């Protein structure tokens, strides 16, 4: 393998790791907030917990998508380049 190729590979691996690692911070905090607030709401109004839970899962899935984007970027870096 040539040197340039090797450097590209290394950069891709580094970039993938960074992308995934940094990209996981935001959704982690966001999902924590979402679940925490949902739990607060459920504790305050237990009769609403069904609606809150389903909305929470949807919201978590939405928040997660930013993390998923970084995952996709990481996979792209790893497998496509």
């Amino acid at each position, binding site marked *: 393998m040539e040197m340039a190729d090797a450097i590209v590979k290394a950069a891709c691996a580094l970039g993938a790791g960074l992308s995934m690692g940094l990209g996981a911070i935001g959704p982690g905090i966001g999902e924590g907030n979402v679940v925490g607030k949902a739990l607060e709401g459920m504790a305050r109004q237990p009769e609403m917990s069904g609606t809150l839970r389903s909305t929470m899962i949807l919201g978590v899935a939405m928040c997660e998508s930013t993390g998923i984007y970084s995952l996709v970027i990481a*996979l*792209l870096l790893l*497998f*496509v380049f």
Partner: protein
Amino acid sequence: MPEYQPFVTIDVWTMIFAWGNLIILFLFLKKILFVPLKNIIDQRQKQIKDMYDEARTDKDAAAAMRVEYEQKLADASAKGEEIIRSATARAHKQEEEIIREANETAAKNLRRADEQIEMEKKKALNQLKDEVSSMAVDIASAVIEKNLSEEDNREMIDRFIGQLGDEG
């Protein structure tokens, strides 16, 4: 060696197939599942509504009938009372009539019996008078020996008895 597509790529044919599948599935589901089911549910709702309407109509009719029957029942009981009252009244009247008639008949019978008794008495008196007169004639003829004509005797005795009877 099998060919692979890259992990992330845009392949127009896969997209076209995805669209086609989605549209076919949409049309199929609509035709096989949704439209028949919606028809069934609509039919059921219509049936239930019809049933409710029918039940309501029936209930109203039953209520009307009940009112009517209650009215009729009240009428009937009133009529029955009326009949009983009138029957009682008639019976009372009849009873009085019968009693009155019986009294009348009894009185008439009594009167007739009285009259008969009177008549019998008179008859008996007349008979007695006759017998007494003939007996007197016999006695007188025996007494006076001189036998007058029977006619004269009878006349004389009749007068005598007549006086007697008038006196008696």
